[in-house]
C-alpha cells in the first residue's frame, strides 16, 4: 500500500478553487514530483495535505486516514513539510532551529545529537554557522537549514515545496544531489518544483499540475521525453 494517498482533494479560497479533485500517491522509498506553472495550486495542495488549510477529499498516510487530524498529529506520525516560505525561526540560532526540528521525537538526546551530527555532515555550512541567527543566513543557507530542520524529525515522508527557489544554479544542483541522497536513507519524498527537468531527473514518478488539476502523470523517464510537456517547461499551458 502507498505511504501517502491523496484522494480527490480540492482546496478553495472563497469562491476560487485553487485545487480541483487531485489524487496522487507516494510509495514507500519513492521520490515523486509535482511540477507545474505558477499558480497551478501546488503549494495549496501541500499546505492542505499537512492540514494547515481546510480541504475536501481524503488523505491516507501510512494506512491511517488523517483527513480529520490537526497538523501537529500528522507531524507526530512522521509526516513533514518544508514550506515554500521556509518558516524558519529567524530570531533563533541555527542550532536551536535544528533542535526544534526534533521536537516530536521521544528517542532521547543521544539519538537527537546523532541526527544533528548527520545534518551537519550533510550541510557543513550549517555547522560553521550554528550560533548564527537563522534570520541572518543567506538564501541558500536558509534553504539548507529548512531541509536540515525537517530531517531532524526523522520523517517517513518529506514534502518539499520548491527547494531550489531563488538559488543559483550551482547550489540548486547541490540541493538536488542532497535530495537524491536522502532517498538512500529510506525517507520518501514528495517534491514540488518549478525546475521541472531537475525534478524529473531526481524523481522516479511525476505529476504535472495546471490550474488546480493533474493533467499528466507517469514515470519520470516517460514524462521527460513527452513532447506535450515542452510547453509546461516553458512556463504554462495554453490556459494561461
Amino acid at each position, binding site marked *: 500500500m502507498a505511504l501517502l494517498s491523496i484522494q480527490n482533494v480540492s482546496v478553495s479560497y472563497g469562491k476560487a478553487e485553487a485545487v480541483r479533485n487531485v489524487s496522487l500517491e507516494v510509495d514507500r522509498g519513492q521520490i515523486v514530483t509535482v511540477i507545474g506553472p505558477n499558480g497551478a495550486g501546488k503549494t495549496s495542495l501541500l499546505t492542505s495535505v499537512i492540514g*494547515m488549510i481546510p480541504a475536501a477529499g481524503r488523505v491516507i498516510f501510512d494506512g491511517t486516514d488523517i483527513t480529520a487530524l490537526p497538523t501537529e498529529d500528522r507531524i507526530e506520525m512522521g509526516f513533514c513539510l518544508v514550506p515554500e516560505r521556509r*518558516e524558519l*525561526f529567524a530570531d*533563533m540560532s541555527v542550532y536551536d532551529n535544528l*533542535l526544534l526540528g526534533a*521536537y*516530536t521525537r521521544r528517542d532521547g538526546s543521544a539519538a537527537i545529537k546523532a541526527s544533528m551530527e548527520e545534518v551537519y555532515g550533510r550541510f557543513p555550512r550549517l555547522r560553521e554557522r550554528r550560533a548564527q541567527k537563522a534570520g541572518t543566513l543567506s538564501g541558500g543557507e536558509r534553504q539548507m537549514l529548512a531541509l536540515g530542520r525537517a530531517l531532524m524529525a526523522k520523517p517517513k515522508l518529506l514534502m518539499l515545496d520548491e527547494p531550489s527557489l531563488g538559488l543559483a544554479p550551482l547550489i540548486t544542483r547541490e540541493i538536488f544531489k542532497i535530495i537524491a541522497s536522502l532517498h538512500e536513507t529510506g525517507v520518501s519524498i514528495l517534491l514540488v518544483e518549478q525546475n521541472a527537468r531537475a525534478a524529473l531527473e531526481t524523481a522516479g514518478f511525476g505529476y504535472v499540475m495546471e490550474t488546480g488539476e493533474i493533467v499528466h502523470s507517469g514515470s519520470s523517464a516517460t514524462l521527460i521525453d513527452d513532447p506535450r510537456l515542452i510547453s509546461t517547461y516553458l512556463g504554462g499551458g495554453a490556459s494561461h
Partner: protein
Amino acid sequence: MNAQIAAILAIDGIASGAIYVLIAIGFVLIFAVTRIIFVPFGDITAFTALTLASLENKQMPGTVGMVAVLAVMATLMEVFSLWRKGALGKIPAALFFYLALPLIPAAIAWATAGTLLPTPLRLLLTVAVILPIAPLLNRIVYQPIADATVLLLLIVSVALHFAMSGLGLLFFGPEGVRTQSLVDFTTFIAGTPVSGQAMLILGSAIFFSFLLYLFFNFTLYGKALHATAINRTGARLMGIRPQQACTIAFLLGSVLAAVSGILIAPVNTIFYDSGFLIGLKSFVGAIIGGMVSFPVTAIGSMFVGILEGFAAFLSSPFKDVIVFSILIPVLLWRSYTLVHAEEEDEE
C-alpha cells in the same frame, strides 16, 4: 528634599518598580506567545493578595469559588467541542486537565479553612490556587477566537477585566486587605534604611527573571515557546501545539503575577479592584519595552516605580496623575523610536 530623603524614595520606588517588573514581564511573555494583551493580569495579582489574606485569617478564600466556576465552564466547553469533533477518547484527559487539576489546590484550600498553615505552605497554596485562573480564562474566552486580530483580542481583554472585577467583588467582597510582613528587619546601606521587604521584593524580581531566562534559553519547552512567539506556522510544522504553548505562557505569567501579589500584599492595601492600576503601571513598562524586549521592559517598569515613589512624596493624592502625565511624553518618544511588534505580527 535632601539626599537622604531622595535615597529613601528611590529605594521605595525600586521596590514597587520590581513588582511592576514581574508583572510587565508576564505581560510581554503572554503577548509574545498568544498575541493577547491580557488586561486582567493585574487582577490576578490582586486576587493573589486577597487569597493570601484569607488564608492568614483562616478563612476559605473566594478564589476557591472562582476557580470552581471557571473550571466547570472550561470543562463543559472542552467536552462539548471534543464531542462535536467526535474525539470522545480525549474526554478523560480533558476532565483531568480542566476539572480535576485546577480543583485540587482549591479543594485543599477549602478543606484546610479554619487552620493556619505554616507560612511556606500558605504561600505555596496561594500560588497553586491562583495558577489555574488565567489558563482557564484562556480556554473559555480566548481559545474560541484564537485567530482574531490583536485589536479584537484587546477589546475582549478589556471586557474580561471588568467581568473579573465583578467576580472579584462577588467572591472577595469590598474590604481591603493587608497581610503580615514576610520579613521583619531593616538594614542600613550607606546610612539609608532599607527594609527587608524591599530587599525581598527586589531579590524575587531578579530571581524570577533569571529563572525565566534559563527556561527560555536552556530548555526545549522554553525554546518551543519562543519559537511559537516568533513564527506560529513554523512552530506548528515542528509539531508544537500553539494552544499548549498558550497554556504554558499563561501558567508562567500567572506564577509571576502570583509572586508579585504575595510581595505587594504586605506593603499596599489591596482591594478586589486594585489590580487594574497595578496592571496599568506594569503595562506601561511593557510598552516601553515595545512588548518584545524583556530587558527594556524591566528597565521601563523600574522607571515607572521610581517615578511613582517621587510623585508620592510630592503629592500623595496626585501621584497617579503625576506618573501618567510624565509617562505620556516617554511613551510618545518610544512610539517614534520603536519598530512595532504588531507589524511583524500580521504575517
